[in-house]
């Protein structure tokens, strides 16, 4: 098969099968794995028979435990966080591990209507036969309810507020009424919802109080330590560069470390040695953005430069990622350049390159 990307349950089918074999924990109804095994699948680890499970989420185990424990109660799970903190990734893998199916997905947009969440009609049939079950177009949500699986909603807060609220009945009564047919679809045990939303974007639709109450929220943070982040960036860049066939050597670890350091320092509002406080820019500066800065640096070096990525190639990308608001962020960035970067002996090149652009 020549697929660009496989579903989690296909890509990691071997791991899931092995986990199932070794799983001795209590299975909640309609779950493929016990909660403990789901956490192991996410965090990685060695099984009793020595089989190695690769880590899917690099970060705090407790968060994954809260997320999985939530799904065993009758509240839905909301993964919340900055853009680029692996929310959708986690949601995909949890549903793959819990229901063995990560495809029951509703993409939330400003244009998502009620029929994308509840059900729609096949109008040709509706006209020909009148309202019958055959004329009904089911949604991933309805399918998940019928089969006791996990439904996923991406970008919940982008869906308009009135459409969001159709979820209330589904989440509290676990039923979806179809008044046109005087019937309803009642959820089978094992059904639940994982939604993702980011807390940085402005102009999104805040959840109503009633809906909020039906979700347990887990905030996925940016990586904890610098090494962790460098590790994530390096792995992802290496795999992406291969995919894009960039005519350049693998990125120097040193450059990645520098970018991660700049991003972390600005994000945390303090230099790594903890001695100087910094202002933080308005952008989120997530790991995903660090990855894309390195990638664009690589592309610049490959297509227009001498093939090795240097400070010049990175400067534009860094500034683009940091300065999102032309006034505030520029002050932040200038202050950072003057007070921190300038003072670092081995950062002279990057200081000069960035100074030219400001």
């Amino acid at each position, binding site marked *: 098969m020549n697929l660009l990307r496989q579903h989690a349950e296909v890509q990691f089918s071997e791991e899931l099968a092995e986990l199932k074999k070794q799983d001795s924990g209590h299975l909640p109804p309609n779950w493929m794995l016990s*909660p*403990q095994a789901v*956490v192991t699948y996410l965090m990685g680890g060695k099984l009793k028979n020595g089989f190695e499970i690769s880590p899917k989420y690099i970060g705090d185990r*407790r968060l994954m*435990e*809260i997320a*999985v*424990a*939530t799904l*065993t*109660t*009758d*509240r839905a799970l*909301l993964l*919340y966080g900055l853009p680029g903190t692996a929310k959708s990734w986690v949601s995909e893998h949890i549903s793959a591990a819990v229901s063995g199916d990560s495809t029951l997905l509703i993409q939330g947009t400003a244009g998502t209507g009620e029929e994308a969440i509840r059900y729609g009609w096949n109008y040709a049939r509706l006209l020909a036969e009148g309202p019958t079950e055959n004329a009904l177009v089911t949604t991933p949500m309805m399918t998940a309810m019928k089969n006791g699986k996990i439904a996923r909603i991406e970008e919940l807060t982008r869906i308009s507020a009135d459409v969001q609220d159709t979820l209330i009945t589904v989440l509290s009564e676990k039923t979806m009424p179809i008044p046109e047919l005087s019937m309803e679809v009642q959820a089978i045990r094992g059904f639940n919802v994982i939604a993702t939303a980011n807390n940085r974007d402005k102009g999104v639709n805040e959840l109503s*109080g009633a809906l*909020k*109450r039906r979700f*347990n*929220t*887990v*905030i996925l943070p940016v990586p904890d330590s610098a090494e962790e982040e460098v590790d994530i960036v390096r792995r992802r860049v290496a795999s992406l560069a291969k995919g894009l066939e960039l005519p350049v050597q693998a990125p120097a670890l040193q450059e990645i470390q520098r970018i991660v350091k700049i991003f972390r320092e600005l994000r945390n*509002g303090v230099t790594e040695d903890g001695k*100087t*406080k*910094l*202002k933080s820019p308005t952008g989120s500066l997530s790991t995903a953005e660090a990855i894309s800065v390195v990638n664009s640096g690589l592309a610049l070096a490959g297509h227009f430069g001498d093939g090795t990525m240097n400070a010049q190639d990175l400067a534009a990308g860094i500034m683009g990622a940091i300065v999102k608001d032309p*006034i505030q962020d520029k*002050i932040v960035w*200038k*202050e950072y350049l*003057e*007070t921190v970067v300038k003072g670092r002996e081995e950062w002279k090149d990057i200081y000069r390159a960035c100074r030219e652009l400001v």
Partner: protein
Amino acid sequence: MPITILGIRHHGVGSAKNVAERLEQIQPDLILVEGPPEISEALALVGHSDLKPPVSVMIYNTENPKQSSFYPFAEYSPEWVAAVYANKNQIPLRAMDLPAAIGFQIDNDKKDAIKNVLENPETVEEKEAEFISEPINFVGYRDPMSYLAEVAGFKSGEAFWEHHFEKNYLQNSSSDHFEGVLLAMGSLREEKIPSSLEEENVYREAYMREIIRKAQNELYQNIVVVCGAWHAPVLEELDKSAKTDTKILKALPKTKIKVLATWIPWTNQRLSTQSGYGAGIDSPGWFEHIWKTPKEYDLRWLTKVAKVFRKKNVDISTAHVIESVRLAESLAALRAFPKPSLEELNEAVLAVMCMGDGIMLNLVREQLIIGKRLGKVPADIPKVPLQEDFERTIKGLRLPLTANAKQYDLDLRNDNDLRRSIFLHRLEILEIRWARRVGNKNKGTFKESWVLEWEPEMMISLIDKAFVGNTVEIAAQQTIVNQLDNENSVGKVAKLIQKTIPAELFEIIDVLLSKVNELATISADILDLMIAYPPLVQVSRYGNVRKTDLSMMQGIVDSLIIRISIGLPNACYGLDEANAENMFTKIGQVNEAVRLTDSAETDSIWLECLRKLLEKSGINQLIVGCTCRLLLDAQYLSEEATNQQLSYSLSVNNEPADVAAWIEGFLKGSGMILIYDNKLWNLIYRWVEQIGEEVFMELLPILRRTFSKFEYAERRQIGEKAKEGIITQDYSKVSDNQDNIDSERGEKALPVLRILMGI
């Protein structure tokens, strides 16, 4: 003669419950609890209705109250529980440990030795080994319990103890419980695994055994010992160790130090920090909750959390509580715990009630997990050291406590007066309103006047500060540090620095400075920075700031002006009249401070910033005018350029109100320049001339306001000058011709000039 040893963790709720149960079972005739023997008397007060935990025994060196240690108790401290039991049933109660006096002596000896080495470098070689070995001892040790934890698969020794000995209290199993503790600790002690306080423990444990032996000799039949679990196993071997103990105890230094013990109120906040036992707890409020709530503590805890949120107007329904309980229980199940602990409850609260947002959880931490409880002590207990220090100091400074107001004029060049001033400044920091500064007409900085008026309530507020520090100096320092914690305005911290200088609290200057630095960096409030700048510049110029790293101070002052200069042009954009006026004053103050620094670099940064301000559009004219004037004063703008600016700003097409504002800013509260600079005079004169009557009437109030701020004499002179109209003759021109100077007449002025300049 049975002895029962109950190994506990200080402030452990499970330990306390088991101690209570075990004491009822044993019915001892003597109880020994861990703690220096000098506190035995104080412990007799436990159970007094006015002694309400959290409280602490404070034991201190009567000669040097700075040397002190604290033994805090909460309601659920096992030692407290034992003491309550003993006093209720009238069973003798003693504290057993190394006497505090000896402990203090050991500390003093060490300090003296170090001092000796520093003073007599020749002897360093012999003693060096001794000193080097000490810190290493502290660093190298690992929590002994972590060995057990590792075997049992727990993350830390703490978690191991918590799980086995604190969390799961079962009724009627206290004897098994303590046997288990003994076994666990015994196995560690047998392996001779060292703990971090190894050397100290040798003495302490020997002393403890000695006290137990003494009790046995007094023919007590049924002794219960309550002590830290780590010591429990070695207190059993009384006979075997008798000889070595005598030897060890002989090696202890003799001491003449007298100590006193007294109770002082404590807070939950302080319980959660380290104390005399070397064992602080993170969550006193939570412990109190499980101590008082034997059943369904998780559910009841979450209801409390909900209540706290509701008080803060966060909508939390009963359904939230139900869901939190469920999530906490599933989390506990997922982690294979029989019941949720504080961690699971916190995580459930976070996910269900707080939308995952940790900031709200801080509220729970502050109000519930730590708790706001403040202890109480009976009124008739002995004096606290702070009070004694206060009384000693005022005696030494000859400042009697009188109810009648009395004024003291202090001359700071006089040693006693200087010390008085320092002391009064410290009291001011402590918010004890005994002394009030009164304005001193004499502007010299070496004079200060205070009015002293004593009220008895002031002693109470002094005692209230007892836990802040044992001497007025330390208490004042600590007060500043405490205020600092909650401060996030640079200007206010700068004011704190200004307060500490006359109070000579130099030790904390560094802390203050780094706080200023930190705040200045993140602050986006330029005004705040501008408020902070002048006092900091002043402080940085104090020559007598001893022990303070002036270079750091300089660095902060320098970076502050950079930040101000970067941010100022934007901060001035689009200000309304009131804000512009405020900004105008601040700019003037900063400018003055910049002049004080006397540094060319600072000057150029600041002037550059002012120039930008001048060029930027959308700035209130008041500020533009002021900027223009400052640049002129600094000779950054040439007279010609100023003229150009002036006529540009005064040109007919401008809004009259803007022009008036510009003039106000430019003249900045003084008419001098109008009197002496004819060019400017003429420009303004012409401008007044050409405005029509209607516009003039409109402007009059504004102009009047500007001019009314001038000194009377200035206004009169300006008025007289106005009679003359346009000045064509230029008096201000000085003749360039050297020949015309009458040097003889000039020399006559020299002696007076010398006196004036103090040459």
